[in-house]
């Protein structure tokens, strides 16, 4: 495969980064970094000839040179941050900002929500046991790059049996011209624990965020995870998330993508224990020349597990949406019940969507299904509404809202749901306001 030559700027930034790591070269994490940068060097950047990147061209990321950000102003955010009123860790250009963070002391005793940097420096057990053990950097070049640059991010650790009632919010703010950050999130919820974690990405500028999240759920554990992609319209965002679920656990992840010029969201869910349940949802609202690639893998590695996957998107302007969803059922994963749907609503002539569901099933007693729709608003439905006295514009808006509600209503965290409703409302009028509540 022809490799892109333009990884050299990333390598020189790495050398600069490495020389700034005073005294850390003895830390075991540094071994990870050096092995990951080698991996990145050998993998190189993907091209559209790569099966996994066929509809997403990352050329801008290889042509532009992204430097390490300096301390920057974060005043004018392109998108407002939802006020969640819960413990919040704030990161500016990838670095933890203690004075912007809040309410961390309200977490239950024994629960850790801290800067990854701090955890690395103090030799936290979770770091040693889990960091880079789940998200694969041997095959994914961006994960390799993130791993090579592991510096700061969030560590959340919920010990056995702990229930964290309020969500924990991780807010990543980026800014600058051609700057890059590699946020890293490690979430470990041990057996019988429960926690909700929200990652929000906002910013201003044409920066590049390359994030990796690892989510580990023990047996009987419940984790709800949300990712709000509210990046600047000029920004690049590549994210990979890997979950690993223990027996009888229940993990849901909701990926919301509204911002960004070029966005790739990879969600890999591994149902690694018997009898667990995974929900993998996504919602996207694209306009102008945004490009979004949702790439998911649901891996059923054990019997009697259930997965539900629903991605819905509204595409306007000349935006492009890509969905690739693979369900992989291992030979021993009998009685798997897996369901996947991707629905795209095109609200402009120039928007387009590409969707490819994929089933790879090695067990013989499973229930798997998938479905894809790509379409415009139903003209018959518009006429039906108009024939009852509802104006054309309102009829269209009502149908867009109805399409979006189906997924927005699955968001369990009230302020997030309201925030999303507000965003859809702003774009598509508010006749249907009360329809959202009903």
């Amino acid at each position: 495969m022809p490799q892109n030559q333009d990884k050299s700027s990333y390598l020189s930034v790495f050398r600069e980064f490495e020389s700034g790591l005073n005294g850390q070269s003895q830390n075991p994490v540094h071994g990870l970094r050096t092995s990951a940068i080698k991996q990145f060097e050998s993998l190189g950047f993907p091209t559209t000839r790569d099966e996994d990147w066929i509809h997403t061209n990352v050329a801008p990321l290889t042509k532009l040179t992204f430097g390490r950000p300096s301390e920057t102003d974060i005043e004018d955010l392109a998108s407002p941050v939802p006020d969640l009123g819960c413990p919040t860790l704030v990161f500016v250009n990838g670095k933890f900002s203690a004075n912007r963070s809040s309410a961390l002391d309200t977490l239950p005793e024994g629960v850790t929500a801290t800067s990854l940097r701090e955890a690395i420096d103090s030799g936290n057990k979770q770091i040693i046991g889990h960091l880079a053990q789940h998200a694969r950097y041997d095959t994914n070049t961006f994960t390799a790059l993130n791993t090579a640059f592991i510096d700061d991010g969030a560590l959340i650790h919920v010990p056995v049996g702990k229930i964290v009632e309020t969500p924990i919010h991780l807010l990543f703010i980026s800014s600058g011209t051609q700057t890059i950050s590699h946020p890293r999130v490690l979430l470990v919820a041990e057996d019988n624990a429960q926690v909700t974690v929200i990652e929000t990405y906002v910013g201003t500028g044409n920066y590049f965020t390359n994030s990796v999240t690892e989510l580990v759920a023990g047996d009987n554990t419940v984790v709800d995870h949300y990712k709000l992609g509210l990046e600047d319209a000029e920004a690049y965002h590549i994210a990979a998330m890997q979950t690993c679920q223990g027996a009888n656990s229940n993990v849901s992840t909701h990926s919301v993508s509204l911002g960004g010029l070029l966005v790739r969201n990879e969600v890999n869910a591994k149902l690694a224990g018997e009898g667990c349940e995974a929900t993998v949802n996504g919602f996207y609202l694209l306009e102008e020349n945004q490009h979004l690639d949702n790439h998911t893998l649901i891996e059923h590695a054990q019997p009697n597990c259930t997965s539900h996957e629903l991605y819905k998107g509204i595409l306007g302007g000349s935006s492009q949406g890509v969905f690739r969803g693979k369900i992989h059922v291992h030979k021993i994963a009998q009685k798997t019940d897996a369901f996947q749907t991707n629905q795209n609503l095109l609200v402009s002539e120039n928007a387009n969507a590409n969707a490819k569901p994929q089933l790879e099933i090695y067990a013989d007693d499973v229930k798997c299904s998938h479905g894809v729709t790509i379409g415009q608003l139903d003209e018959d439905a518009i006429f039906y509404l108009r024939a009852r006295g509802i104006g054309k514009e309102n009829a269209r808006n009502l149908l867009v809202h109805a399409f979006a509600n189906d997924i927005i209503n699955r968001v369990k965290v009230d302020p997030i749901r309201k925030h999303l409703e507000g965003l859809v409302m702003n774009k598509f009028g508010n006749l249907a306001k009360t329809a959202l509540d009903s």
Partner: protein
Amino acid sequence: MLEVKNLHASVEGTEILRGIDLKVNAGEVHAIMGPNGSGKSTLAQVIAGHEAYDVTQGEILYEGEDLLELSPEERAQAGVFLAFQYPVEIPGVNSAYFMRAALNELRKARGQEELDALDFLTLAREKLSLVEMDESFINRSVNEGFSGGEKKRHEIFQMAVLEPRLAVMDETDSGLDIDALRIVAKGVNSLHSEDRAVVVVTHYQRLLDYIVPDFVHVLLNGKIVKSGGKELAHKLEEKGYDWIRQEHKTVTA
């Protein structure tokens, strides 16, 4: 109330209506009958304002105004109602919400106060009982998962809520069992009054036992070829449409 004059309409270049003349006065019930493909549903859709149909000639006057100048929503606001032959399923749009939004659009157009959710519910309950439907129906998405009969009753429920001046029923009877048919007829009859008119488009005479028409028109090949009283419907039921076809041929020959 409704005056259709020499109406010609086509869809994608194919002429379907070839000169319809029809006059409906307030207080009257008209039945439009005809075999499949005669243009009955097209006439209903053109009256409601479906944009797929091009009116190439003629006019439609509604209460003296040019109906064809109005958008579908303006027609509804002016009191025209079409009970759809195939009611559309709208996932995610709750029926109660939809009907309240529609009713309030109509009320706004008439300069009336909008109804709040509570007042609407009171009204909706009353109208639901008329069509013997459970309240749970309006808490569901519009027509989604409804049986054929439920969809038709839901149309009548909407008509009862919106209280149109001119109701056009497009094959509301097709596919209904006798109980549902009676319920539908009861709904239509309850709306009927001196200042309202009903146009029933149907394939069969059966519905007309319950909604008794003042006039029956036979539509063939895009034209009304015969008009008469309710006895015409019985004759059609007995003898079919062939005799009219023969008669019509003789006339045009």
